[in-house]
Structures are given as structure tokens and as C-alpha cells.
């Protein structure tokens, strides 16, 4: 059986010449689901960070992931973006793309963007340069060497600068931004790449109430066209944006549903929301 698949894989004509390969493989979402995570297991030195985790996210959905510290939220994102290889399980992007066969760079090129828990921007580069590098483009060595800023690209960057409100700081070194501004810049770096799926880890940490509100607006407006998965501890924020909430606990899914359903779920009350009214 697997021999047959191997043979098929070998016989594929489009794999012979690299120019026959689709640069950006189209994601097949004919069954509405864009991300399939099934039976994921991962242990660090015997500690099970992910434990038979199953998760399905629909195309265009805005999904919130919540869970106590160490529940495995960040680890799940690590697996989806190719940073960590799980012990077992499968992760599919659409019907056909097996993400476990791709590395970080490939996965990014496929259209999965990620914002880290700790904001990471390129500190020595200007805000503009950070966005320029994040643009959706041919990202191999030679094209990058000869790339010129096109008017379309400038427009795109300008648009994003407006959205993230860093127009004034455009030529400032990213390292000189405040914590909240870095968060925004990182979100901007995601937006400018026009990904299909965004994984956003704790976007509002370190933001003021006003900034938080703007982030909520932005994320809600993204959903529909793009699929967004947000990890956040700020319950107020989650309530303000969430349609479907998934609760992780000790590396597996404990409950899933609307915010109200989840909050009234006895398991959830016991392990997670128990102490809060």
C-alpha cells in the first residue's frame, strides 16, 4: 500500500523540473475544513506536552484557544508551523497538504503565518524593512538579491502601516518601538504576507485597553477571508472576539463550543474556570 504511494510519488512528472511545481500550492478546502490536527502526541523527556490532540478548524473561522499555563497551546503552534516534530499524529492543511512533511520556510510559503508569544521583530531593521521582508514574494536568494520595491508593494506596505498605526514610526528602527508597538508590527508582518491561516499567540499581552480593543476589531475583520487561530489568556478579550472556543488541558482538548457553552461545561469549570465565578 505504502509502496504504491511511494511509486506514485516517484512517478510525478511535476516533481522532475522545479519550474513545473506550483510555487504556492493551492489549499484544498472543499470540505470546509482548513486545518486538520489528528491524534497528535508529543512528549518532552517523558512529559506529555500534547496528548492525543484532535482539532479541526474551518476555513474562514476565528478560533480561540484557551487553557492554563503549560496546556500545550504554544507547542501546538510549534507543530503546525514545523518548528517541532510530533511523536505521532497528523496535521493537514486543507485536504491534501501534509504539514509534517514540510519545514518552517515551506509552511510559511504555503500561507501559514505566525505571531509569537514574545514579540519577535528584526530589531536592527526599520519598521518598513520588517514589512518589506514579510511581503508575499519569491523568497530564494537570487530573486531577493535583485528585488526592487514595486509601487504595488509600497502601496501594500502603506496600507498595512495604516492598519497597524505605525506610519509615523515607518523609518524607525524596530528595536526602538514600545512593547505594544512591536506586537502591532508583528501583526503587520503577518498581514502584509496575506496568509490563509494565521496563528496568533497572545496578541494583547502588554497592550493598553485601547490597543486591545483595536486588536479585537482587527482580528474580527480578518476572519472570513482568512482563518485565524488566537491563543489568549485575557478572557475579556476572548469573549469579545470569540465565536468558537477550544479549551486545552494537559495537551488535549477538554471542551469546545461558544464561550457560554464552554464556561458552563462542568469539566471546564472544574479544571480551569473553577476558581473564577
Amino acid at each position: 500500500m505504502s509502496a504504491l504511494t511511494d511509486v506514485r510519488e516517484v512517478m510525478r512528472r511535476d516533481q522532475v523540473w522545479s519550474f513545473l511545481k506550483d510555487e504556492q500550492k493551492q489549499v484544498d478546502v472543499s470540505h470546509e475544513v482548513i486545518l486538520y490536527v489528528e491524534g497528535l502526541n508529543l512528549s518532552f523527556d517523558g512529559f506529555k506536552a500534547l496528548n492525543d490532540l484532535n482539532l479541526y478548524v474551518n476555513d474562514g473561522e476565528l478560533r480561540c484557544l484557551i487553557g492554563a499555563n503549560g496546556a500545550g497551546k504554544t507547542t501546538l503552534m510549534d507543530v503546525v508551523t514545523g518548528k517541532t516534530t510530533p511523536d505521532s499524529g497528523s496535521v493537514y492543511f486543507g485536504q491534501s497538504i501534509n504539514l509534517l512533511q514540510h519545514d518552517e520556510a515551506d509552511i510559511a510559503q504555503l500561507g501559514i503565518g505566525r505571531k509569537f508569544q514574545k514579540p519577535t521583530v528584526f530589531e536592527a531593521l526599520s519598521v518598513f524593512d520588517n514589512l518589506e521582508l514579510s511581503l508575499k514574494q519569491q523568497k530564494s536568494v537570487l530573486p531577493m538579491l535583485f528585488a526592487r520595491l514595486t509601487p504595488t508593494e509600497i502601496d501594500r506596505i502603506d496600507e498595512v502601516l495604516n492598519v497597524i498605526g505605525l506610519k509615523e514610526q515607518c523609518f524607525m528602527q524596530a528595536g526602538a518601538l514600545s512593547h505594544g508597538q512591536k506586537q502591532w508590527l508583528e501583526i503587520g508582518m503577518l498581514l502584509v504576507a496575506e496568509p490563509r491561516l494565521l496563528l496568533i499567540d497572545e496578541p494583547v499581552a502588554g497592550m493598553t485597553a485601547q490597543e486591545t480593543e483595536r486588536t479585537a476589531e482587527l482580528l474580527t475583520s480578518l476572519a472570513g477571508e482568512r482563518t485565524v487561530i488566537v491563543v489568549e489568556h485575557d478572557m475579556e478579550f476572548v469573549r469579545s472576539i470569540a465565536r468558537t472556543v477550544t479549551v486545552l488541558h494537559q495537551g488535549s482538548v477538554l471542551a469546545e463550543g461558544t464561550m457560554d457553552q464552554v464556561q458552563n461545561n462542568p469539566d471546564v469549570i472544574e479544571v480551569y474556570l473553577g476558581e473564577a465565578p
Partner: protein
Amino acid sequence: MNQLMRFSRLHGDSKVAPFVAILVVLTLLASMGNLLMPEDSAFYVSTYTITLLGKYLCYAMLALAVDVIWGYCGILSLGHGAFFALGGYAMGMYLMRQIGDRGVYGNPELPDFMVFLNWTELPWFWQGMDQFWFAMLMVLLVPGILAFIFGWLAFRSRVTGVYLSIMTQALTYALLLAFFRNEMGFGGNNGLTDFKDILGFDLQADTTRVTLFAITALLLAVILVVSHKILQSRMGKVIVAIRDGESRARFIGYRTERFKVWLFVYSALIAGIAGALYVPQVGIINPGEFSPLNSIEMVIWVAVGGRGTLIGAIVGALLVNFAKTKFTAIMPDGWLFALGALFVFVTLYLPQGLMGLYKKMMDKRRPDNSDSHGSDTEGKNAEPAVKGGNV
């Protein structure tokens, strides 16, 4: 929008053009001072000085090679002497074969050391080295291919930081040991020397010396401009991005190891060219050039000048080597201590090197100008270099 365009252009300005102009003018003056002035004139530049300057410029080119990878990409190579020496050996082999039957043993085919070892025919890797074009090809190919293989293995396995530095030291040390062996066919510990001429021109002639010096200066200028262009391009921004956050760069879709490999190869090519220019000017190449200590010295030149600035690397190499010449004349044994002290001083008090100091002074002079758009090229490269270089 137009404003944005204008800004981004403005943003790319730098001091490379004036620096190149100064370099070219000084080279012309020194060359004319040697060739046109009578020996008793105050403007006369001795051939000894010309050769010394040529040697410094080769070191400057080497420092540039180190800065390209260390200053901009955070890859601290402690083995760049290897690429320099390989380029030098390729040139040395060509010069050796130009000696022809003028050697001590008068063998038209074999260099003296081979006759001495009772070899009867030229080893395969000496074939073709009597052709200048072929030798020059080897000057580029040998360091380039070695850098490619080394870089490909190291960067693909994601070796970084101290481990990578140690590997580069091991690389140059292994080559040092290999080239010391007579059986290798590179003249053992005496190396290659007693060169007579290059492309038919007598190596001892003033005109040849001046020409070699001028070619070195010219190539240094060209390489500086090209490197600057590369690092200003979008690829250059990726390089800096890799230095600041390699995994972040991967997550936005860059195959960082490929960028690193090609930059490493580019840097090795520059080092190889520097070595090839060095050998005809100093008249000898021996395994000592592979010594790990040499490679560490190069890093100090760059640190003194200021990493991540290109010009700083050149200035650092020139100044430190000038100091070395002066110092060793007075206290031959003290140089290593002086070098160590210099390194400690720069690390503690001048983390951004002389270029950083220069920039700070310029900023003070016009405080209104410097803060408004906070990041001209030097500033943006100099600041995080501290981080990029932490090993």
C-alpha cells in the same frame, strides 16, 4: 506614496562613495610618488612603502570578507585565514611555475622543492597552474568550493555560535597540519617562494610593484562597492534579519541556511582574492598563513574598526597592521600582548569600534539631525552588531 519612495532612497545613503574616492586618490598619489618623483624629493614614496601599503590593503580586503559574515550575519568565522591562504597558494603555484628553469636545480618542469624530494613528475594538481587564467580560476574555485561544502554541512545542520567558530578554527588548523607535510606537494613548511615574474613582468621592478599595489586598491574599492550593494539589497536585509532572529526569518518563509551558505561563499571568495594579491607582493606563501592565530587577528581588526560597517573593517585592518609594523620594530615579542590588550579594550570600551565612535561624535555635532529619523545605515548596522557577535 512618493514620499515613501523618496524616503527609502534617502535611507540607503552611506559613506562608501567618499571613502572610495579617498582610496583612489591616495593610491594615485602614492603610485606617482614612487614612479615620477626623484628619490631625494620630499614626495618620493619608496618601493618598500608601496609594498607595505599593498600588503595592508590585502589585509583590509580580508577584513572586509570577515565583516560581511560576522558583522552582518553574526557568523563568527575564526578560520578565514584558510580561504586567504588557499587563494595565496593558488597564486603561489602559478608564480612557482613561471620560474621555469631559473631555479637552483634548473629543472624546466619541476619546482625546486620537488626536485629536492626526488620527484620525477608534476603531481596532477599542479597541472595547468602555469596558465594564468587557470590559476586565477583556482584562486576563486578552491576557497569557494571549500566554503560551500563547509557552509552547506554546517548551516544545514543548524550549527551556530561558538560551535561554528570552533569548527572554523578546526578547519584552518587541519589545513595547517596538512600543508606542513612535504608529501602534500606544496613545499612543506618552507612553502612557495623565490618567485621571479608574473605574466612576464619582473616582480622586483618598481612598476610591477606599483601596479600590484594599484590593482589591490582598485579591487578593494570594487569589492567594497559590490558588498555594499549586496547588503543594501533586499537580500542584505534578509542577512541582517537572520542575524537578529534566524528562526523568525524561517517562519516568514526564508531558507536561512541558503542565504548563509551563499554569503559564506561570497566572503571566502573575497578572502581568496586577497590571498592571491598578497603573495606576489610579499613574495612568499607558507603554511603559517593557516595558523589559527592569524584568523583570530582578522577578527580583531574588524572589531577595532567596527563590525557591520564595511568601511570600519578596512580602517581597522589598516590601523592595526600599521601599529603592528611599528610595534614589532620596537618590541618584537610584545605584539601578541598588545593585540590582546587592544581586543579587551575594544570589547569593553568601544563595542562598536572606531566607526561607532566616529558616528557618536558626528551625532553630537548635529544633535537636531541625528534623532529625527533615527536609522541611517551605519547606525542600524552598528547597534545590534553587539548582539550579533555574542559568542
